[in-house]
């Protein structure tokens, strides 16, 4: 039985984190998830910035989910400045977010997670033995990139987004090409849903709370300004989020953690499926049938992401088939003092941006709460409960199992990182 496990650099996740575990006579004495990501002081640098620069800076919070940070930023700005965007803008933004979600999910599932379950140290080596799986992943990755690039201007850090709408609307032939490739890729996402459903996940369960934005009726990817609690009941208004979710720092970590009502909770694909199940399409519901029975397993976040890729792409096909997008200029904006909260479902869960503007259109106060911040405490609590079931295994195996659990959360460490002095042991 090992006494100490130190994962000094957890790999195949976004950002820099380590885990220290101390075990004494079969008893777990310490589980400490440490974040040592360099802090970038985003809430500081976003202060006193002009309203039409803010979303471009905010996008740089995250390299893997930049579309949703941009989207949430413009939403917060529009709320603060009292701007109502067109229905077409809403639809394009929904597609952009789905594109970003597919990009993020496919990378996490096939490149960071799947090697663990197929027995390879990394995706490059896995590609040599399972070329068909990697090929399928590349096709899905391509459609994710296409969606973000066509609507947002490029694959990462989309720049066409602006408060009030988009600086340019793609041409009809671009939408046509997009529809064609989206349709062609649907079977690949269905394959993915089955593949990630059938993996041999560790047998672990722990009941926890799940939160997700309430999805509009019949539209899984259209969030309302309401938050649902475990089971899907609406419980909190987005405007009350700061009173409900409490952020805190931990000694020795540069990241924030969060709790709701003094307890840890989960957000992300799995929480969305559990809370917004009713708004999935008929086929989407069917694809969840193999994961729903394991409703207390955090590992189900993996297959949940795969289901979302299918559901999202299907929605894109439906929207593109039924919508005639027209050239349109962004709504003109008049600056005024005000505060706005934008909330969205990022690939890893709910993200909040709150901005306070002065009457000249400069930010006076910024607060950002990322999904990984919200998930970290739940992840640490899961590790505490998962470990005792592993102690009779060799050290390497324990490490791999723990890493599987960490990766199931798809943590995005640089998103979660603020600064607190690092204590090096």
């Amino acid at each position: 039985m090992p006494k100490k496990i130190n994962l000094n650099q957890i790999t195949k996740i976004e950002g820099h984190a380590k885990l220290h575990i101390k075990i004494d006579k079969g008893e777990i004495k310490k589980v400490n998830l440490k974040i040592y990501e360099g802090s970038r002081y985003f809430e500081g640098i976003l202060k006193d910035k002009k309203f039409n620069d803010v979303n471009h800076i905010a996008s740089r919070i995250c390299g893997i989910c930049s579309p949703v940070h941009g989207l949430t930023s413009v939403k917060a700005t529009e709320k603060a400045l009292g701007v109502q965007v067109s229905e077409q803008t809403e639809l394009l933004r929904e597609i952009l977010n789905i594109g970003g979600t597919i990009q993020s999910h496919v990378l996490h599932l096939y490149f960071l997670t799947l090697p663990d379950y197929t027995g390879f140290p990394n995706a490059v080596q896995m590609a040599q033995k399972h070329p068909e799986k990697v090929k399928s992943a590349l096709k899905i990755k391509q459609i994710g990139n296409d969606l973000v690039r066509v609507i947002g201007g490029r694959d990462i850090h989309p720049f066409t987004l602006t408060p009030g709408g988009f600086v340019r609307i793609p041409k009809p032939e671009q939408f046509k090409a997009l529809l064609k490739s989206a349709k062609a890729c649907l079977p690949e996402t269905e394959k993915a849903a089955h593949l990630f459903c059938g993996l041999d996940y560790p047998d672990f369960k722990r009941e926890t709370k799940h939160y997700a934005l309430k999805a509009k009726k019949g539209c899984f990817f259209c969030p309302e300004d309401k938050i649902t609690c475990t089971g899907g009941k609406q419980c909190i208004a987005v405007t009350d989020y700061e009173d409900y979710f409490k952020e805190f720092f931990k000694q020795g970590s540069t990241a924030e953690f969060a709790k709701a009502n003094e307890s840890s909770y989960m957000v992300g694909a799995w929480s969305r499926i559990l809370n917004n199940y009713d708004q999935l399409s008929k086929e989407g519901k069917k694809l969840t049938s193999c994961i729903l029975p394991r409703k207390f397993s955090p590992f189900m976040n993996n297959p949940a992401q795969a289901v979302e890729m299918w559901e999202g792409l299907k929605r894109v096909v439906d929207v593109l088939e039924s919508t005639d997008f027209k050239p349109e200029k962004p709504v003109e904006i008049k600056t005024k003092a005000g505060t706005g909260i934008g909330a969205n479902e990022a690939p890893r869960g709910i993200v909040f941006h709150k901005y306070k503007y002065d009457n000249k259109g400069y930010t006076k106060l910024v607060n950002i709460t990322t999904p990984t911040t919200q998930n970290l405490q739940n992840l640490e609590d899961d590790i505490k409960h998962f470990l005792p079931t592993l102690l009779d295994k060799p050290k390497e195996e324990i490490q791999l199992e723990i890493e599987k659990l960490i990766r199931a959360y798809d943590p995005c460490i640089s998103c979660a990182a603020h600064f607190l002095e690092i204590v090096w042991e």
Partner: protein
Amino acid sequence: MGDKKPVLGIVSFTCDQGCQFTILFIEKLMDILKKFDVQYFHLLKEKNRKAKFDLCFVEGAITTKKEAEKLKEIRKKSKVLVALGACACHGGVPAMRNFIENKELEKYVYNQKLPKDALSAAGIGEYVKVDYYMYGCPIIKEEFMNFLNQFLKGKIMKEFEGPVCAECPRQGKQDCFLRQKKICLGPLTHGGCSAVCTKANFECMGCRGPRPKADYKAEIELFKSWGLSEKEVMQRLNMFKNIENT
């Protein structure tokens, strides 16, 4: 290089890792990585070793003494060192904090103290010799692939010389953003991006960093002559790089 595959590393400092993700988003990535011995790429690999690199890409800004020391170690171990993306090239978005008083920063980020060894955020060229600057926030996939292909042939690619305008279809035309009195940083900014933003109706924000020979003063005066405030102009200019002292 003989029969041995060149040893490759991709190392990350303070940034959002968007450039590493851009690399992971490359469709033909696996085909080209097969030709390298990838020793360090923590986003993709389980076992990472700071070996002796034939080619090492460094992403992210340097923000602490500790990071600077690590960077110097990496330089010693690398035959060819490439600055990957805006943060590594010239500080990028993390360097925006250089314009804010430390006390202000600490106040707004939850009253937390800055690290004891904190430095002004800067590009890696402030600390070590850089063999190639791959600009952009994020980098351009094609440039990365071209660089690797040329490297395999034993060559170091030449940097694109002109500004963004050199590839911009609006240059000299009525729809040039400058004629529309919009803050477009195209003339000041390193080109080589195929003018991706201006082609999609968005003015250049300067993510590829300032060209050393560009005439900032004239440009700033021009913007101000339109009635724009100094604050608004300078914030745009400083989004990706501190040009205040250039």
